[in-house]
């Protein structure tokens, strides 16, 4: 991995051209394009070296056109590398080999359901129609190795194809393999190159990109189109405050610090239709160590208490639902999952914390545990006793809040453990709306010529929640579609 070409050499000619054009402050109009002609010509310019961007780059090359990837950081630094690496799919070769029959209609229905029917149906349909062959493509063309299918997570069907990551995240492995595929094809990936403006013609069709490089501004010309694959704006606090507002705009990050909303800043001047701007995903995190305590929260054991030692939520909820509720339930956005040794995997969870040097507390008594965790001892003891008493009397649902475990377990077996967690921002779902060809549309729902988006940079596919494995899946599906459409346009000799 690492930089694949010498960017400085490639920059020389275009920098000369920019200098000759006397570039002033960054503008958002076609005027800049006229005074600073592009000197680096490509068929497809792809912004951001994440899953969607690298998939688009490989597909573009394999379609016979000339792509370039502009990445603002020193390496792919978006959310993909933090992803566990699941891809939700139906109709894959792996499923056929394992005798699993997952239908497109069922996947479609479930994706719509988790979005409360607010996801774009056409994009969702496109996803289910393409994802099967795209998972095969990840195997065959990129060399991704998937684990054996397992019936997780919701809705417990054999859809999730986990990228085998070895000692690293599945997402990190996916990016490594995509980079290797780019390297094999000599696809240029220009690091430290941040797109700051889309260059347009007098009809407001996108003809290129102005980017800030280590040596200054440089223009890149796109014969076929520009694909925005910069992710959302989960690390842009100003945008989070503006579009989400309130406590959810101040969550610690679970992923990249560099996903900062270029999907919005670059496309808004072209009157892109920005949709689902207040939508996002969050999950549990220990912000100090970036440990994901999801196993403890999904264990089906124990209770969750706030810093006052009180239960705050029905523990039957998923870890995502718990994380989404936490900032509204506690002013500190912090709580403890208390579990006892009835949970068979508690030692494994404790070992995970130890390995990551992440805080957790353990004691033979509830009282001692509360003391070690710095929680109010009397309150915690009372809460645990009340829970156990309600369980004995079959009155867990009468608690406030109720506990509706179908198979509840008493908290009576030491040692007892306390695992702290917070709610953290995973990703935003808002962005410029795309159509089924991955073209960005304007406020009149017309495609903005030459402009595409994919992955979490694009808006429309996700709302509310997302079905596990559809983020990487969506990046793959629409990354490939964008590249194919640009290739078709190039072959026809016109801008799409």
């Amino acid at each position, binding site marked *: 991995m*690492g930089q694949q070409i010498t960017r400085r050499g490639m920059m020389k000619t275009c920098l000369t051209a920019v200098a000759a054009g006397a570039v002033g402050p960054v503008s958002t109009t076609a005027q800049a394009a006229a005074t600073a002609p592009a000197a680096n010509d490509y068929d497809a310019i792809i912004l951001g070296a994440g899953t969607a961007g690298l998939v688009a780059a490989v597909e573009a090359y394999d379609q016979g056109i000339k792509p370039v990837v502009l990445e603002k950081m*020193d*390496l792919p630094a978006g959310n993909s590398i933090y992803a566990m690496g699941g891809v939700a799919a139906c109709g894959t070769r792996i499923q056929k080999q394992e005798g699993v029959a997952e239908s497109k209609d069922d996947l479609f229905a479930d994706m719509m359901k988790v979005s409360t029917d607010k996801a774009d149906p056409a994009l969702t349909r496109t996803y289910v129609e393409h994802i099967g062959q795209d998972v095969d493509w990840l195997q065959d063309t990129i060399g991704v190795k998937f684990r054996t299918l397992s019936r997780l997570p919701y809705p417990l069907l054999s859809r999730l194809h986990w990228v085998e990551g070895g000692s690293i995240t599945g*997402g990190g492995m996916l990016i490594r393999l995509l980079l290797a595929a780019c390297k094999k094809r000599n696809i240029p990936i220009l690091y430290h190159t941040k797109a700051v403006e889309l260059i347009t013609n007098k009809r407001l069709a996108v003809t290129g990109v102005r980017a800030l490089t280590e040596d200054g501004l440089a223009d890149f010309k796109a014969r076929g189109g520009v694909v925005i694959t910069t992710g959302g704006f989960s690390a842009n606090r100003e945008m989070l405050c503006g579009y989400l507002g309130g406590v959810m705009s101040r969550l610690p990050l679970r992923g990249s610090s560099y996903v900062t909303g270029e999907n919005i800043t670059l496309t808004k001047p072209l009157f892109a239709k920005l949709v689902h701007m207040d939508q996002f995903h969050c999950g549990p995190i220990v912000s100090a*160590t970036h440990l994901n305590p999801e196993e403890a929260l999904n264990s089906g054991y124990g209770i969750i208490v706030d810093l006052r030692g009180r239960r705050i939520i029905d523990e039957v909820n998923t870890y995502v639902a718990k994380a989404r509720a936490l900032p509204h339930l506690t002013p500190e956005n912090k709580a403890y999952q208390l579990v006892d040794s009835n949970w068979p995997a508690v030692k494994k969870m404790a070992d995970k914390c130890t390995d990551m040097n992440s805080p957790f507390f353990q004691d033979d008594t509830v009282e001692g545990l509360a003391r070690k965790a710095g*929680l109010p001892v009397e309150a915690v003891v009372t809460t645990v006793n009340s829970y156990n008493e309600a369980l004995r009397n079959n009155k867990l649902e009468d608690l406030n809040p109720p506990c509706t475990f179908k198979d509840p377990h008493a908290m009576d077996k030491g040692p007892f453990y306390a695992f702290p967690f917070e709610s953290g921002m995973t990703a935003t779902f808002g962005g410029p709306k795309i159509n089924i060809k991955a073209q960005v549309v304007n406020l009149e729902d017309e495609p903005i010529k030459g402009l595409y988006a994919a992955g979490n940079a694009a808006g429309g596919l996700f709302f509310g929640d997302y079905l596990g494995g559809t983020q990487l899946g969506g990046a793959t599906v629409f990354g490939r579609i964008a590249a194919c459409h640009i290739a078709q346009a190039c072959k026809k000799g016109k801008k799409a």
Partner: protein
Amino acid sequence: MTKKTLLAIVLLFSGLALATSVVAADNLADRHAQDGLECTHCHVEKVRSKAPKMDTCLKCHGGSYEQLGRASAEKKPNPHYTHVGDKECTVCHKGHKEPEFFCNDCHKFRVQMPLAKGTTQGGQPLLTGANP
């Protein structure tokens, strides 16, 4: 002060440090100097004051990043094979100051880096606000 002048001063003092160096190396540059390496052994960039690139380090260390990753495979985490990709060596291994463990920008791993003062990087994390 021009960059050249600055570099000259830096190199002069590096030379003095080399001449008067004591047994214990404080940083990577000192250690290299103790091993008899000239400043220009690592500082091969066009702008000499810039940190050396990965390829320069790999000539003496490991040969390739993949090989480095294999050599440190037993470490937890493996610092040369991570989910963030292959960072430039000098992101962690600083030439003229203490090393910084990049992973601990987000994590708090207990790691002993070469030439790091103290026994651990990261230390004991605390969940602030634990007391109501």
